[in-house]
């Protein structure tokens, strides 16, 4: 029984995905749950697993090609059966996001029909059509093929286009000290679009609070002394847990604005911003209010490792309801983050610093951490944000409750 695998939707605003690599080649058997293919979304490269067991009968999309979500990308089936790709609905087509179901069968083959040879799919956006010569010349001269309009058949970039581009453009790379022009990467472009959208459309307000982190640091030290090597918790892990507990009490901050409705999410899924070389990614700790520090710490550590290797899974990066962004490791005082739509709020964490503080009329050495909440005024307001910060402060200043 042949089944069609479609381009999965791996993020709420994902419109298309680029097929990076077929992990299973044509003719290869694949078990349900095994990684079938690597898909690059705007944000990351994701390993997509097979939803059913079978043999990979046909790849419908070539490596390096981008197709809209819902587009058939492969047919799984019995190695013996004949395939009628048309009746399977596997002929290349455009499809709307609504119909997209990740890696799910959409139709069943009628057996014993003659096999149909498909025309190879047209290269979609993302893959540059260029002659081998043009590719070589572009590589030698440091030109970005994607930025060059092709004049060959079907828009193929050919030699004359490279020559024309060389006359227009200064060399892309020069000696140290010279101005460089670097094309915007896919991830950087996406961050730019989303942040512009958030800054323009979300009416932000900001509240900063200074938190006494003395007990938290002491507890963390004690805690980590008891953990096996490699499982030490970060300050951020405690913040994630504290934020999650506080969010449980303030559903408006764990919410999304959808049209005329505010969606108060049932789960508290805390996104943790991860800096990558090519940009920023948010990994998601689900049900963080119900998880132990140990579990939060291990999960987040693993997800960050995967993100840095470019191997995140779909679940790693989708479904967050609130975000935490921590620049504490860079010795900064405090900063203000931009809300990450469709979430309603984000918390920016500064460094824990030793400071002179006044306790009972005495100046003593204390440890302080500044946090700033940025929130969507359409969903919540300053008073609510301030009360939430109070609860957060309570959790972090009496941190024992975080490990109970």
């Amino acid at each position, binding site marked *: 029984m042949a089944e069609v695998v479609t381009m999965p939707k791996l993020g709420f605003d994902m419109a298309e995905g680029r097929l990076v690599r077929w992990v299973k080649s044509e003719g290869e058997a694949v078990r349900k749950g095994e990684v079938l293919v690597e898909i690059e979304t705007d944000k990351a490269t994701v390993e997509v697993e097979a939803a059913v067991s079978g043999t990979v009968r046909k790849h419908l999309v070539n490596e390096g090609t981008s197709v809209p979500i819902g587009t058939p990308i492969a047919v799984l089936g019995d190695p013996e059966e004949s395939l009628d790709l048309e009746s399977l609905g596997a002929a290349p087509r455009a499809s709307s996001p609504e119909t997209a179901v990740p890696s799910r069968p959409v139709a069943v083959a009628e057996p014993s029909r003659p096999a149909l040879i498909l025309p190879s799919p047209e290269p979609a956006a993302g893959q540059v059509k260029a*002659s*081998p*010569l*043009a*590719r*070589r010349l572009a590589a030698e001269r440091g030109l970005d093929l994607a930025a060059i309009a092709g004049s*060959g058949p079907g828009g193929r970039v050919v*030699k004359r286009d490279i020559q024309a581009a060389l006359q227009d453009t200064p060399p892309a790379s020069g000696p140290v000290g010279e101005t460089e022009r670097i094309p915007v990467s896919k991830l950087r472009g996406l961050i730019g679009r989303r942040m512009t959208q958030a800054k323009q459309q979300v009416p932000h307000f900001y509240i900063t609070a200074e938190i006494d982190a003395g007990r938290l640091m002491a507890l963390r030290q004690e805690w980590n002394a008891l953990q096996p090597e490699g499982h030490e918790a970060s300050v951020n892990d405690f913040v994630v847990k504290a934020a999650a507990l506080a969010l449980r009490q303030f559903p408006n901050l764990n919410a999304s604005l959808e049209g005329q409705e505010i969606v108060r999410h049932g789960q508290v899924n805390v996104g943790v911003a991860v800096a990558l070389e090519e940009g920023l990614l948010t990994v998601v700790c689900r049900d963080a209010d119900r998880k132990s520090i140990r579990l939060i710490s291990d999960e987040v550590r693993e997800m960050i490792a995967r993100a840095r290797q470019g191997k995140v899974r779909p679940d790693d990066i989708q479904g967050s309801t609130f975000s935490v962004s921590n620049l504490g490791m860079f010795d900064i005082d405090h900063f203000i983050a931009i809300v990450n739509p469709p979430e309603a709020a984000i918390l920016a964490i500064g460094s824990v610093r030793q400071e002179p503080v006044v306790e009972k009329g005495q100046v003593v050495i204390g440890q302080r951490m500044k946090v700033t909440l940025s929130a969507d005024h359409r969903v919540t307001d300053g008073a609510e944000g301030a009360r939430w910060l109070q609860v957060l402060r309570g959790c972090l200043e009496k941190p024992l409750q975080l490990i109970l």
Partner: protein
Amino acid sequence: MAVITMREAISQALWEEMERDERVFIMGEEVGVWGGSYAVTKGFYDHFGPKRVRDTPIAEGVIVGAANGAAMAGLRPVAELMTINFAFLAMDQIVNHSAKLHSMFGGQFALPLVIRTVGGGGRQLGATHSQTPDVVFAHFPGLKVVAPGTPGDAKGLLKSAIRSDDPVIFIEHATLYQLRGEVPEGQILEPIGVSKIQRQGEDVTIVTYSKMLQTSLLAADQLAKEGIEAEVVDLRTLRPLDLKPVLESFKRTNRAVIVEEGWQSYGLGAEVAARLYEQAFDYADAPIRRVAQKEVPLPYNRTLEQLALPQVEDVVRAVRGVL
């Protein structure tokens, strides 16, 4: 320089080599008293006598078999097969003996044998007498396969073939005997296994040989009127294949069209294109195109026959397709 026909050029080569070396002799159907089905050996019988111009039975296996034996024994036979279509009857002798005796006997025997034969379509001789299976012979290591496209090359290459110690299949095109061209007087030798640029150009490389050289040159003239300068490389020898001038040309023009009269499947175009992709992939600016005979037994009907054979227009269209 004298302008003579291809027929005269081939005839001169045979005559000169027979005069030069008395081990050279001719055998085949109607080569003697009749003077050859294409009149190439007219007058040879009277001049060289029945011992050196031997008429044979209509038995191609015998012709090549006897030529193999004579070559092994030290003579230099020029065996004529009336058409290449009849060479299939001698296939065992050609493929299993001519091509292999030298290596299978550890080099004890040389086979200084030339099989002259006539190929090509376009004369309304029907499907079985009009084939261009040149690449079939070029498939076999141990044979040299030569197919000239000009009278000068025909003379120089045939003389080299006769002087070669290896078996050479020398394929003449049935429609080229009347082709006139400049042929240097006297002892000219053209090396086997060397391709030749027959027309210079910067825009596209046309790779071809034999009759299709003439077709390609006409196409190049037509293209030149549009300002497209095609470089035409004449392979002249299919085995050993000299790709060097083709590669050099392709690296300049970045575009290639391969023109052959035989069928496209598994043909010369596939071979040359594959080698270009292997050795000059990063120089390709467009997919390489092939022009070849339609994949049908060649029709007898003149209109259909011409439609099935590659024409000047087909070459022009293919060149436009790669630009």
